[in-house]
Structures are given as C-alpha cells and as structure tokens.
C-alpha cells in the first residue's frame, strides 16, 4: 500500500445524545475526519453485539458505539446495557485476536460537539494503528 492507510469506521450513535452531539459538531462547523460513518439508532442499548461483528466482517476497520453519559439515558438505562454488552464483546474480540483498538465506546452528550470530533480522531488513530481489518473477511480458497 503506497498511500497512507485510511481506516473505515462504522459508528452507532444514540438519537438523543451522541447523534445530537454529532449534529452539534456540524452546526458549530467543527471539522473532523471523514472516516467515520454514522448509523442512527434510538438508544445505544439497541446495538446488538452482532452489529459489531457484522461491521468488521463487511470490511470495516473499526467500530464506534456512543451513547448518553451514565445516568442521562433517555430510556433510563439503555446505555448501561450497552456498556455491559460492549465490555463482553470487547473481551471476546480480543480473545479471538482482534485488536481491541478497533472497537470503541464513548459517552457523548448532545452538547459535546467538540468531544465527538475528538472521539472520531481517537477512533481513527487507534484503527490506523491496528491496520486494515481482514481477519473476518471470507477468503477465496484456490484448490
């Protein structure tokens, strides 16, 4: 690879805090890297661990989950579920040999546009360090 490796990251943001925070980054014209592409879910608790694996399987180099700060969940406790599931998944992925820097979780509130930009930068840096993700990709076998 001659050019510098640019990781592709899929982000799952909750509608009430982090998606609104990402919108605020836009409204305040806070520039960040285009590597992260956002999928809106109503709550970080909606994020099925399967989504993480699926994104990595599809070829994403990293995954980001972001929700409301603990205690601020619009649905009372969805972010706590998200955190527990994430911790388990994080360990499992590490166990099967996936660089733990590829999967990240953060709390970004609706007023933290600048923080969202930082989170993006951090996720990209980590995924860059981990290199292209091809461990889960189905390989063609030449008999």
């Amino acid at each position, binding site marked *: 690879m001659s050019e510098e490796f640019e990781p*592709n990251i*899929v982000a799952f943001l909750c*509608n*009430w*805090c982090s*998606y*609104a925070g*990402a*919108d605020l*980054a*836009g*409204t305040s*014209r*806070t*520039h*960040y890297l*285009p590597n992260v*592409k*956002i*999928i*809106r*879910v*109503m*709550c970080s*608790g*909606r*994020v*099925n*661990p*399967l*989504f993480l694996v*699926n*994104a*990595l*399987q*599809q*070829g*994403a180099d990293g995954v980001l989950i972001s929700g*409301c700060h603990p*205690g*601020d*969940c*619009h*649905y*009372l*406790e*969805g972010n706590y*579920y*998200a955190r527990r*599931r994430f911790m388990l998944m994080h360990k499992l992925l590490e166990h099967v040999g996936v660089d733990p820097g590829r999967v990240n979780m953060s709390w970004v*509130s*609706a*007023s*933290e546009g600048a923080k969202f*930009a930082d989170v993006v930068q951090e996720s990209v840096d980590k995924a860059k360090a981990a290199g292209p993700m091809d461990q889960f990709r189905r390989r063609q076998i030449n008999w």
Partner: protein
Amino acid sequence: MNGYRPKIGVYVCHCGINIGSVVNVPEVIEHVSKLPGVAVAREYTYMCSDPGQNLVKEDIANENLNRVIVASCSPRMHEPTFRKTLKEAGLNPYYLEMANIREQCSWVHEDKEEATEKAKKLVEAAVAKALLLEALEEKEVDVIPACLVIGAGIAGIQASLDIADAGFKVYLVEKSPSVGGHMSQLDKTFPTLDCSACILTPKMVDVANHPNIELMTYSQVVGIEGYVGNFKAKIRKKARFVDVDKCTGCGVCAENCRLAGRIPSEFDEAVGNRGAIYLPFPQAVPAKYTIDPERCLQLSKGKCGKEGPACAAACTAGAVNFEQEDEIVDVEIGTVIVATGFDVFDAARKPEYGYLDCESVITGLEFERLVSSSGPTGGKPIIGRDKKGEGGYLPSKVAFIHCVGSRDESVGNEYCSRVCCMYLAKQAHLIRDKLPEADITVYYMDMRAFGKGFEEFYDRVRREGVRYIRGNPSEIFRKSADEPTVIVKVEDTLTGTALEAEHDLVVLGVGLEPRKDIREIIDLFKLSQSTDGFFLEAHPKLRPVDTASDGVFLAGCCQGPKDIPDTVAQAKGAASSALILMAYGKVKVEAQVSVVTADQCRGCGFCVEVCPFGAIELVEENRMGNIVQVALVNEALCKGCGSCAAACLSGAIQPKSFKDEQILPQIAVLGVK
C-alpha cells in the same frame, strides 16, 4: 395502493450552498440513480421549501413512488417536515428515510472529494434501509387536561396563570414556604425602576386564589412516571409543623419564638434574621408560618425552654403541631413545565474579592435586601451592622464590580449572566437616589446594554454622576484590621494605568448559576444539560422551551440566565406549548415501538428483564395444544429504545424502523470502503 416492489425517490438537497459548496451533488445523484430500486433521483436547492416538498409530492403521484429518501440536514431537524409531506401525498410517513449529509458531512469536512464520497455512501445506506422500511400506524391517546409546574418564581407563576386562565388544571409545586422566587427578593427592576414587589405580589395572590390552580408550597416532586399526556407524579408535601387551615398568619408565634431574630433569613440573604418559626417575608403567599425543623429547639433537641414551646403556647388558633408528618400526594397530569430557576454565584469562590473577610464587601442580591423598603434595614443601605442589627454606617464611597462568577473560566463559568450589567447600573442609581453625596464607581469588563430601554438607562445612570472604569479588579482587601474601608486594586484598561481606590462599600455583581440540586430534576425527567450546566432545550433557535422529553417544557432561568421580561416571555411560550397538547386533547404516541414475532419467541423473558418501562410481559399461547410462553409488547408503554432487541437471542423482538433487517443492510453499505 403502491405496489410491493419498492420504487424509491431520492432527493438530494443543496441547502443553498451549505451542502452544495462541499458535496458534489450531481455526482451523488449519478451514483444513487444506478442503485437497485431507485426510480427517481433529483437535486434541489432547498428541499424543505414548498417547491421542494411539492417535487416529492408530484413524483409520488406521477411516478408511483413508495419510498422516499431525502438527503439533506439531520433527521432531528426535518424528519417531521418530510413525514408530513409523505402523508399529504397519501404515502405512509414511515416510508421516509433521511441521509444526514449536512451536519454530518458538508459542515464537518473540508475536502470536497472525500465529502462527496462519504455523501454517496450515506445516501446509499439510506437506500439500503429504505428497501426494507415498513408502513407504521400512528395512534393517538388522550391528554390529561392538567399541567404540573415546578417552581413558583415569576416563570412558574406566569406559566401557571396562563394555563389556568385557559381553563386547565395546574398543580404548582414550590420547594420553599412561599411563592415568589428570586424576583420577590428584588427591590426595583431595571430599566423601568418598577417596584418588584408591587408588580409581583398581585400575581402571587392570583396563583393562590385561582380556582384552577392547586398551589403546593414547601413541596417537592419526588417521582414521575408515564409519558406525554399521561404522567403520574408523586409530590412530597413537607411538614410545616403548622396546620395551614388553622394558621391565620398573625405572627404571634414568631414574636414568641425563643430563637426569634437569631437565625439568618434565607429570604434576606442573611442580611436580616428570623426565628425558628417564620414567615419568609411579609407578603409571602401563602401567609402561613413554617417551622424550620433543623433549627427549632423542640424539633431538633426535643426540648424548648422549661415551659415548652412558646410558639405553641402563644398561638390562639392552636395551629402549631409538632407531630405533623410529610405527606405524599399523587397527581395525574398531561404536561409538565420545569421552572426551577437559578442560584446566584457564591462570591466566596473568588477569594481575591474578600467577600468572607470584609463586611463592606457584599453581593448584589444582599444589596437588594439592604435597599428594599421591606428589608431588614427599612431600605437604608446601612453596612456593617452587628448581629443584633445595630450600629453600622452609611457608605460614602461605593464600588460595583461586574462579572463576578460570569465570563470567568477560572470558576468554570464561560457564559455571560446577562443581568449583572443592568442590575448593577440600577443599584448604582439606587445609591445615588438614597445617598446623593456618595462617590460611585463601577468597574466593568464590557458594558452589555442590549435590551429595550437598557442603553437609555445606562446613559441616565452615567449622567447621574456614576463613574465607569473599564477594568476587572485583581484584588480587594482591607485597608487596616480595625476599619471597614477596603482597597480595590484594578487596572484601568482604557488608559493603561494601575489604580488603588478606597471604598467603604463594594457590591459584587454575582452571576447566575444552575441550581445546585439540578440533578434531582434531571434524574426525574431525563433532561439534558448544556455545557453551561443549565437545562438543554430541544433546539437552540426553534424549540427553545421544549426538551428532548415529550410533554416537558422549560421556562425561565433554569434554561439559562435571563432577565424578567425574557423570563415572562419564555414562561408564556412554555404555557402555550403545554396548552397546545391539552387544548387539542390528543397526542400521537410513538409509532416506532417493538413488535414480537411470536413464532420465533422462545419465551425466555430476557426482553422483559431489560425493558426499562415494563412494557413487555410473557403471555401464554396455545400452539397446537402445547401451552408456551411468548413475549407481548404493550404499545402504550413502549418507547422504542430497542434494548429488548439487543437482548433477544432469537431476534424475535424488534423495534419498528430499527429492525436488525433494516440496520444490517446499512452496515453492509457503510462497512465496505
């Protein structure tokens, strides 16, 4: 009806030049028009405008579109707009999907090529999801025609009166023993110099007497459940230890209290004193006495003098009741207005200003009580009185300091408190009025006289001989240990000279801060805070009184510092927002709720466990003679968060519009570079 085969219309918005100047829109159009299912792909300058929306409507009619994608701003901005467009064109509004290529693309990326590539991906992901969107049914439920207003300052009072006058029930809950809030503590109001009490007291009496308002003072909301239109609130009425039905407000009890005049009065900002049984101020509403359980000897120590409590003995009405207990009241309401106000900045957090060391350094709110004719000094600005309220002097060299605790990152408050410039100008005028010979200096950072009549008032105060020096004092300290005179060290930034001025009264223009117990309300109503710590409104421009929690509105300084006219205006706005729901009488409930595919459900109950709203239960189902358990969603309680779906092992329970089968295609598009 539209056929089953998806026919998608994609509309890419230029948003003037907001999107078009960064994202190459024609290139995006070209890319998406080749995608499966896309029948129409168009661009337009402003999709949200009437012609933009008509474009969609016409295509739905002429091209038989059955899915619509608008690639423009955030769905948090215009999803409702375009849902309405679809509805008006006879298409189910949930056949809409939006791609956010403004807030999350053109506004945050500079490189045109990269932004265009990303926009393509985002629209492609929307197409992938749109193929699998389903029509949803919007249901309406009745709105309980009652409103809970929390906080009875001027914001809560005004909102309550407006709603009650419109014929709806109001429960007005106030934490302290009287309504009135901070406004009742003020002497005059800028810039008109209206007497604060004169304009507020009639409204205070109105809320107490209005047939539609149930006033609950000395009470706090301790629990809330339900959803917009149908809330249930628990309110704790704290024990006053005085039977309000018997108390006549005569005040004999307070005169006889053994601690009379020995406890700093909260209302008088500790400039004056009260007893353990007290009325916060003469015009208090309700005019009923309250016993402070922490200070009362009988309640805190179990013994009051040799003869027992003197207040009870003196009360001819027999109203004092030491056995009284807190009472929990349940109310059902359709809407909520939060008007919990602010705290003033604690001047002790700026130790360089000597607030704790010098009796001649006071805060702006203490000054209000000093110059108030109903205050502890009868309106004379007497400084340095002893604990009995005797002695003291009238100041001759007065200083006012701007921006104490505002615009100051060192104390964590970056914002401007908006009222200090003008209240200090008003206070300078009051000193000029009461002490014509006094020398008055105002030390300011910037003068912000932005409101109606503000600049004129500021000019008037300067013409009255008030000196304005541009500079923020670095230090205020005693001249010597045995005299009240202090020295203010400041640099006049207009002339660049360092000054040391003597003053015998320094008034600190303390700013406004979020309530210290703001967390309690946040936890109850799931509200968010902005970076300044005040409550966050749903949209800074277009939804300034709404919150992210449907049916909960904001009024007054709990949302951010504001003066009285702005507070009243916002309170009226909040009242009108609550009235819209109650007057219409019905509200749409969340259509994006979870749904169970019973055949796939194994009845494990994991979803029941994780549901934060208790919306799922297991019911028995007869499957060809076998009784099995399956999950069932109560759609009225479900809010569509989807926690259940992530917990479900078989994928049987899914939130509508955010089903696995709708998200996975998005991942499939965005995961590939």
